[in-house]
């Protein structure tokens, strides 16, 4: 119960134990991932063989290749970053436009549009991926059969991965940005208009600075979600696999500590993103 109600010692300590157990449960898997990134053995499993930096810095000359020398992993990392940047940019532009559509205009069909914008969030990622794959392949087939065009970007690959991720990340960006736009005091804009400011001047000097925390938050969120997405990506990926698909392949073959090492790096990236994000929006 709450603090103002007296409680027996037993109940209070039971609560504390539960909380501690819960936190242990949350952090146990992460701790072992980090630990075994430094284990001096070929498998990320006990027993412990002592500390090593090999899984980060080994240059491949003594049967061990660390993350920083694993060209396959580094290439897939580059693909992931490229896709994540593209997804963030597209989602941000779409999300901003959508936020204005939802908050500043009244037109027929708007409630339906607002509802439709939530739909991508309730469709399982695998199905989003598969349906986009099916449509795009049909389009490519059609172009090939009837127009004689070879539209390679419609075949599984990074373009499709980007589109697949945009399909639902744009929804999240829309929600984030329109939540902030909703709280904007419209009289500021009207005052500026009365003083003769042009529409673009109002947008760039008043609205954009006001929206900036939400835009930054949405961009970082989009980047992280894109970076760690697996379900949609896996259905749309071609020969050039992004990082999650690459790691998945390695985990199925039997994990090596290199996977732990890259996981540790991913944790650090997420931590930095989250810290930047929480600094960007002090009021929440």
């Amino acid at each position, binding site marked *: *119960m*709450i*603090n103002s*109600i007296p409680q027996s010692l037993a109940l209070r300590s039971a609560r504390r134990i539960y*909380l501690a157990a*819960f936190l242990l449960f*949350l*952090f*146990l*898997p*992460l701790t*072992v991932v980090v630990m075994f990134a430094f284990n001096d053995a070929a*498998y*990320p*499993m006990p*027993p412990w063989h002592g500390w090593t930096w090999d899984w980060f810095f080994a240059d491949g000359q003594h049967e061990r290749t660390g993350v920083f020398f694993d060209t396959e992993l580094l290439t897939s990392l580059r693909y992931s970053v490229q896709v994540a940047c593209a997804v963030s940019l597209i989602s941000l*532009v*779409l999300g901003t436009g*959508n936020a*204005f*559509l939802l908050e*500043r*205009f009244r037109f027929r069909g708007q409630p339906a*549009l*607002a*509802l*439709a*914008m*939530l739909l*991508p969030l*309730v*469709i*399982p990622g*695998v*199905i989003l991926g*598969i*349906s*986009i*794959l*099916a*449509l795009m392949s*049909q389009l490519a087939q059609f172009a090939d059969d009837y127009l004689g065009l070879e539209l390679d970007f419609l075949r599984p690959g990074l373009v499709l991965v980007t*589109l*697949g991720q*945009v399909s639902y990340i744009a929804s999240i960006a829309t929600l984030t940005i329109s939540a902030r736009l909703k709280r904007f005091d419209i009289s500021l804009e009207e005052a500026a*208009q009365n003083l003769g400011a042009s*529409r673009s001047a109002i947008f760039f000097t008043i609205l954009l600075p006001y929206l900036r925390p939400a835009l930054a938050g949405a961009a970082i969120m989009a980047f992280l979600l894109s970076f*760690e997405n*697996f*379900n949609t990506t896996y*259905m749309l990926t071609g020969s050039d696999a992004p990082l999650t698909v690459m*790691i*998945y392949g390695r985990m*199925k073959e039997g*994990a090596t500590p290199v996977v*732990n090492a890259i*996981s540790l790096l991913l*944790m650090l990236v*997420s*931590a930095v993103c989250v810290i930047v994000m929480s600094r960007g929006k002090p009021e929440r």
Partner: protein
Amino acid sequence: MKRLPNALFLWLLLAPALIWLGGLIIVPHLEMLILSLRIRVAPQQYTYGLSQYATFFNEPLYWHTFVRTAVLSLSATALSLVLAFPVAWHIAKIARGRSKVCLFALVLMPFWISEMVRTLGWMILLRANGVLPQLLQACGLTTSPVELLYNDGAILLGLVYSSLLFMLIPLINALETLDDSLIEAAYDLGGQGFNILREIIIPHAAPGIAAGTIMVFMLTLGNYLTPVLLGGKNSMWFTEQIYTQFITRFNWEQGAAFAFLLLALSTLLVFCGLKLSGQSFADVMRRT
């Protein structure tokens, strides 16, 4: 901008939204619906009918997997609700000041980390030569290493673990708006723990509970990574069947039918959940 109903400007904003929703959501799903109804009679020749759906019902493996996925997803949802509720209560009602902020941050932190990494952690812990079996052996509880991975328990554990966040956030938000004095009043009037929970706390938290369970259920049902990695060859997860039909067997018609069945199941159960709890879809989605 409100005072200038500029049709051109409206269309400029509307076009990308329509391209996104139409091109990436609606048309692909229509295409998939058509695909699922298509029957191949000869190369390049098709008729339309329900035979892919008939295959699903006639082949026990498929609908067994389907039912199993639904049951495991529902269990994972119920389990995460039960596990998350006390923690959400503690964060919303008991912890104060710094400890509250810290606890909240601690609880959310694991979920910013890729699902892949979290699953890897569980694999290292549970695998026969992993941390927990070796620990059990060292304690003398078992004589030989036990395989804790590749069973339903492991799948359930992984699913609960990866979905706790989506339960915690709406629950915390809902519980924070509950006025402490209501509980004090109930207590003064002689209410006991369980009664207070049933009569006051749960009705107040209902929107949060609905939002959390719906979110978690949908995410678990559509999950691919966790069941496949933690369940191994016996995972029998429905998204895996969809993947197999599409990518491995290249039987798109059958895969599309499966995808539609999964979509129908999640829509149906979410709809029932909303109706039972009296929530609206848009409201639930904005809470999470």
